[in-house]
């Protein structure tokens, strides 16, 4: 399951130089994007990082283990609301983020197991609808748990959430570094990058391990996996738990970043969005999934800002509501990419081969 790098890239000197280059690029990125295009674009980059973490989490469930989950955003919601409840005036609690984030990941992971357990016997598309149902149930509860006891504050959501604080410095305020003013969105960017790298690291390690192989085996042929001695129940639950904990982690970050959460952010559409990132990028292929996350997080924003401007430039006036045009183009892009690259934009090399050789499958499945 190792990535197929070209020969020169496997040279240790190259990977060392490459790593330094990537690190420099990651550090410099906010100054380029924020400085060149404005801080609102840095917000987009920040949320793209959250989406990358989400996609990588969902990729474990859908891409590795082959379990179609349409309610994934529920775990994002669990992480976000946990942060909101433990660090806001809602209950008057103000725990630090380094306590809440791991807790959020753990609680979301637990939810993953609880919601995953009843679905274990279900086949593909039944699983999809049940997970979708769970996702909706979680959202509806968030929406309505303001009475009889006010837990979630209902549709209004929870505001005034504490920002992430590191060493006494709130990331919601700009900081002075070496005489340089670093705005809040940059600070969150650095935090998110570190955690995204961590998530990538964990995913890569998991993929190339005994557990990762068991996931893929289940995806490829569940019956054969059982016969090989894999306890498919536990290994599937593990996939749900791992995926969910990534969701919980990024949910917590989201709450600290926005300082506001409401059920609206956790609609079915968001689950679908993350699924699109995974599939469009290249299911099961980590670099592809990251690409999918970046593209689908950034594309709608580019379209949002472009949809009005381009129309004026082209026709001299606004013909189509920019918001609508943006979604229209987004939908068309989904269709077009899938039609021209059914295995995703950047599939695993072996999947590419599979697509090229489609139809010659020897002796698989009765």
């Amino acid at each position, binding site marked *: 399951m190792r990535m197929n790098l070209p020969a020169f890239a496997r040279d240790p000197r190259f990977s060392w130089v490459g790593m330094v280059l990537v690190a420099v690029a990651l550090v410099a990125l906010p100054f380029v994007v924020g400085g060149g295009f404005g801080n609102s674009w840095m917000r987009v980059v920040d949320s793209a990082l959250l989406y990358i973490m989400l996609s990588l989490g969902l990729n474990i469930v*859908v891409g590795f283990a082959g379990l*179609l989950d349409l309610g994934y955003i529920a775990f994002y919601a669990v992480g976000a609301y946990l942060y909101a409840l433990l660090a806001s005036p809602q209950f008057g609690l103000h725990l630090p983020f380094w306590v809440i984030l791991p807790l959020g990941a753990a609680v979301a992971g637990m939810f993953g197991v609880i919601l995953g357990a*009843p*679905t274990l*016997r*279900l*086949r*593909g*598309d*039944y699983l*999809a*609808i*049940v997970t*979708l*149902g*769970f996702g*909706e*149930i979680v959202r*509806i*509860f968030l*929406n*309505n748990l303001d*009475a*009889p006891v006010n837990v979630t504050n209902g549709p209004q959501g929870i505001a005034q959430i504490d920002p992430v604080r590191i060493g006494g410095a709130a990331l919601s305020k700009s900081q002075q570094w070496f005489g340089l003013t670093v705005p809040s969105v940059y600070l969150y960017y650095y935090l998110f990058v570190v955690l995204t790298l961590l998530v990538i690291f964990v995913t890569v390690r998991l993929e190339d391990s005994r557990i990762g192989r068991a996931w893929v085996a289940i995806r490829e042929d569940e*019956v054969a996996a059982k*016969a090989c001695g894999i306890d498919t129940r536990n290994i599937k639950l593990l996939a749900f738990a791992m995926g969910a904990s990534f969701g919980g982690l990024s949910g917590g970050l989201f709450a600290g970043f926005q300082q506001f959460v409401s059920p609206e952010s956790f609609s*079915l559409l968001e689950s*679908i969005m993350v*699924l*699109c990132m995974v*599939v*469009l990028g290249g*299911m099961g292929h980590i670099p592809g999934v990251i690409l999918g996350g970046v593209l689908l997080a950034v594309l709608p924003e580019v379209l949002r800002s472009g949809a009005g401007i381009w129309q004026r430039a082209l026709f001299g006036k606004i013909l*189509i*509501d920019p918001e*609508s*045009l943006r*979604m*229209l183009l*987004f*939908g*068309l*892009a*989904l*269709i077009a990419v*899938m*039609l021209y690259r*059914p*295995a995703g934009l950047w599939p695993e090399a072996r*999947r590419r081969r599979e*697509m090229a050789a*489609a*139809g010659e499958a020897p002796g698989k499945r*009765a």
Partner: protein
Amino acid sequence: MDIFIQQIINGLVLGSIYALVALGYTMVYGIMGLINFAHGEVVMIGALTSLSIIKLLAGTSLPGPVVVLIGLAGAIPVCMALGFTIERVAYRPLRAAPRLAPLITAIGVSIVLQQVGMLIWGRNYHAFPGLLPTTPRHILGAQITDLQVLIVVLAALIMAALILLVNTTRIGRAMRATAENPDIAGLMGVDVNQIISITFVIGSALAAVAGVMVSANYSIAHYYMGFILGLKAFTAAVLGGIGNMGGAMLGGVLLGLIESLGAGYIGDLTGGFLGSNYQDVFAFFVLILVLVFRPSGLMGEKLAERA
């Protein structure tokens, strides 16, 4: 007024509509194993198309029911053409592709149709003109309007016709053969592409009818209406056992009943803890419960996977 009977009546009406939409999902799924996510949007386009026609004719001297009928007659071919096109453009090229690829194009189509609906009909809610007799009749202490009777009867007739079509005609036989195994059906001389097209066209016609029914029943239509309706109908199809037409009908009616009874009684059942805003939770909860005990739905074949 008897609340129980009333909720049963409302549930039957809602359930008939769900059943019609669920049939569209289940037929497509049965034949090609695809969740046609865009199906709900076809319902929406049907509803709004008929509404435009109806509004155009509402000022004329034609009697109300005739106007609605013309609206329906206009919406059906539009939806059929739409269903045909969707399958051709977005699904057919992906028959041999990985399983999730057509699901993503389906989502794409759904988004596109929603936006097209919004561009044509705007963001506003449209009131459905009161052209149909809505004077309530009283039975068993509950109220039922002619419209509601019409919806249930019409849905039942359509479903009966569909069952006849599938079980007694050549096309129906070809559909069943394709559902069983498209490759073998193809070898036996069935034009699989044509059968799949026909399936989409029939499903879309049902969607159009359902669209007109919902908007007439709730006197409202909106570019976003297809999403939730589609979701519910899909749930109903799965509840009944997806791919099974009888299951879709049963699942639709059951879901309608569950929702309306659930909404009426959930407060009492939970001692006032949960209110009727938990109606949807109820629906999904029942679905999950059913699937946990019958993983292939109520009427789905029990597929012990062959090893």
